[in-house]
């Protein structure tokens, strides 16, 4: 089955699936505006936009990196740990260059900040190089190589934080406070991360659609062996992709430090690599490689953040608790929608056989549990009942159709 949107169309700005995402984003915003009891979208529109924009930019910056890696046919699981390492590198460098100012919570000066940021990006480059070496020379599968750095880099960042604070400050610490006014400016001006995200998205889009390198990235992801035999230096293309992935995560790490005024390698960016991959997948990237767009990923990131924001507005309590659940559900639904045409054509059944029978209560219990936790026991009962009824109907309809 050829992929219906397999060819990169440069002429039209967005593909139909991307317009569907725009629509989904608008629907989510409208739903939140209506369902939110505080109506914060009405009363504090700028506040709300700022919130979503900041979160989207922070996610989007390294989701762009994930997109390039995924289109090149790879995967980078280490972005979250790279964020932690980048932040720690930045803070450690500042601590080493200006220990007194850092301990006294005083400005360290733009030169030191610049050096620290460059050091972080450089570490990103080194990590990308390490990934490429593991993958192309040692021939590890990308999943294994970046799984190793996912756990390894965070541990490394923590060790770096503790040993540097032990050496440079009176007490060993698991975090380093960063209070330079430059970072404060970034925290208070949402336009900075948004502008960085915008520019980076534009650059990534140009690379992917308008350069030889971008075409080679698509070719590599689509058919690695054929790419090599067509004379493409696939190792170098991979090197770019993984360095781009790691360096965008490093860049995001700097914004995390600015946002939280602290480099905290224990938790900073933990699990965020999966959000980035989710944004790319929701935006239409295929994990098989070769397929994906920058507009798709940008919209995917916006959509994820809007839905997370919607849930936090509507439920009120602890949005971060539900974040993972929402990302999971959104990814499943988005990818299902992308396949729905194929399913109908192939006569594939959603709930076949014994598996389908067991899936009905599984899904109903899931719906009921979520509804109970968020809206009370009564809603839970109703949700369970509706889910059972709906799924049973689907099952009956399907067995009628195929009989």
């Amino acid at each position, binding site marked *: 089955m050829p992929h219906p949107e*397999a*060819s990169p*169309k440069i002429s039209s700005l967005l593909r139909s699936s991307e317009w569907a995402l725009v629509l989904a984003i608008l629907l989510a915003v409208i739903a939140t505006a209506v369902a939110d009891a505080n109506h914060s979208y009405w009363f504090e529109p700028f506040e709300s936009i700022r919130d979503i924009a900041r979160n989207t930019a922070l996610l989007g910056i390294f989701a762009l990196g994930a997109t390039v890696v995924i289109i090149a046919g790879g995967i980078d699981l280490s972005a979250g740990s790279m964020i932690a390492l980048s932040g720690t590198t930045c803070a450690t460098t500042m601590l080493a260059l200006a220990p007194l100012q850092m301990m006294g919570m005083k400005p360290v000066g733009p030169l030191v900040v610049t050096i620290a940021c460059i050091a972080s990006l450089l570490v990103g480059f080194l990590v990308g190089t390490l990934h490429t070496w593991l993958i192309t020379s040692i021939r590890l599968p990308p999943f294994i190589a970046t799984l190793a750095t996912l756990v390894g880099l965070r541990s490394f960042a923590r060790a770096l934080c503790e040993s540097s604070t032990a050496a440079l400050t009176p007490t060993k610490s698991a975090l380093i406070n960063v209070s330079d006014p430059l970072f404060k400016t970034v925290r208070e001006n949402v336009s900075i991360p948004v502008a960085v995200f915008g520019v980076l998205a534009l650059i990534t889009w140009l690379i992917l659609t308008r*350069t030889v390198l971008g*075409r080679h990235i698509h070719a590599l992801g*689509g*058919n690695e062996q054929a790419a090599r*035999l067509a*004379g493409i230096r696939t190792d170098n293309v991979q090197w770019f992709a993984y360095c781009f992935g790691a360096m965008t995560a490093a860049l995001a790490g700097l914004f995390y430090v600015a946002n939280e005024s602290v480099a905290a390698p224990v938790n900073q960016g933990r699990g965020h690599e999966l959000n980035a991959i989710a944004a790319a997948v929701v935006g239409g990237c295929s994990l098989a490689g070769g397929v994906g767009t920058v507009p798709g990923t940008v919209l995917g990131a916006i959509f994820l953040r809007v839905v997370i924001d919607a849930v936090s507005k509507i439920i009120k309590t602890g949005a971060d608790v539900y974040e993972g659940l929402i990302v999971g559900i959104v990814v499943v639904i988005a990818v299902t929608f992308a396949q729905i045409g194929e399913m109908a054509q192939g006569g594939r059944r959603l709930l076949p056989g014994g598996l389908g029978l067991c899936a009905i209560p599984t899904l109903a219990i899931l719906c009921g549990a979520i509804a109970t936790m968020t809206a009370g026991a009564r809603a839970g009962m109703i949700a369970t009942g509706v889910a059972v009824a709906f799924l049973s109907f689907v099952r009956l309809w399907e067995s009628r159709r195929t009989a």
Partner: protein
Amino acid sequence: MDHIDTPHAVVMQGITKRFPGVTALENVTIEVERGKLHAICGENGAGKSTLMKILSGIYPPDEGLLLVNGVEVRFTGTRHAEQAGVAIIHQELALVEDLSVAANVFLGREKRTSLGLLDEQAMTAECGRLLVSLECHVSPRARTGNLRVGDQQLIEIAKALSLNASIVVMDEPTSALTENESVRLERTISRLLAHGTTILYISHKMDEVFRLADRITVLRDGRHIKTVNRIETTPGEVTGWMVGREIASRQFDTPRVRGPKLLEINNLRVPWPEHPRGYRLSEISLDLHAGEILGVAGLMGAGRTELLETIFGAIEPTWTGTILLQGKPVRFRHPREACAAHVAMVTEDRKRLGLFPDLDVAGNVSLCSLTEALRGGFLSRAREESLVAAPLRDTGVKTPGPHASITALSGGNQQKCIIGRWLLTKPSLLLLDDPTRGIDVGAKAELYSLIDRLCRDGLGVILTSSELPELLALADRIIVLSEGRLIAEFSRAQATEQKIMEAATGS
């Protein structure tokens, strides 16, 4: 399952199958006599495989009746078809490489002990018995992925036998076999026929069909064209029905102008440490002039592909000897370097090694010459389109446009796109590794004309092929490889199929 009252093992009546946007089969009726080999012929896309997939329960027909041994059946899946005695051996083998041979033969129907555990012993024993009967000398305990393609195919047949299938469908079974393996397969087929098994045999190799078949059915564009007894027809006639026109076997006899010496290889040896032979290629010396086609014959595994890959720098450059390109010694370590030296290679396995399914036609053609599509450092769609227009026209690609999906084109047109890709790099040496494999008859003829024309334009071409008539029609000289050595060289005038095959098989 004995319904001797009907002479027909299979009757397919008025079968119609539609896929979105295309009618794959329209009102096809075929009657297959019991215990006979019935060949189904047709070009790629004629509907042969679809028809066989309906017979073996993979697709349900939209319209029409299917009778097996005189009983109407409606298969709901392959398992159901197998129970009715129909087994299919797919062109692309459906084996689990990491399981043992015995495990594959009994996959999904594993024998169990009284405790309900796997009965490895019984399965191994029965599998061994089946393999011996098929002259397949591999252990039932061997890992399937380590076996040669020919042996893997016999394992599929063993699977069909273990099902006690009375009707066996073979979908182009010899497409990946060496001559020896094909001969062994033919012996197996005659044994099956002697036991009363009915065989439906899909192929477009006329020599095979005319050696094996009792009856021949020709399909074209999803329609039934003719069913005849083999003895009443000729290969030329059948080919004509397949393409809807008589193909005069094209000859390119007008002598070509031999240019200066382009390539010279002396005493090439490519080591192969993990193999008992110790080398992939040994003591290879040859030369090639511009405006000349050098044919490379040899069985599968003889080293044809390795020879081209060595020249092209596609494998690690561990070789010894010398390769001189236009008089200068070269040693390419990456295809990139070969491209830069104007050497081009069209690889053997189009899908796996040549095509980029996610790029469109223009993207597939322009890939090796993208720097020419740049404007101000960025790719320009307009430049790319005008860049690919010439090769698309020269190679005669039939495409709805440069932005059509490459996967929507036929195999022949895809191959022309890949040749076009390399023509854009302005090669002086073109390496073609079995370029017409899996391409239908009409498209093959077009590719032959194209290759002939390119050669007359001054290119040096090295062409490998598993089809001897192709080499005989095109090549100025033919070298024969066997077990990694250059065994013989024939001029165009000397070469015959007989001589080449004798050299290749070492007889």
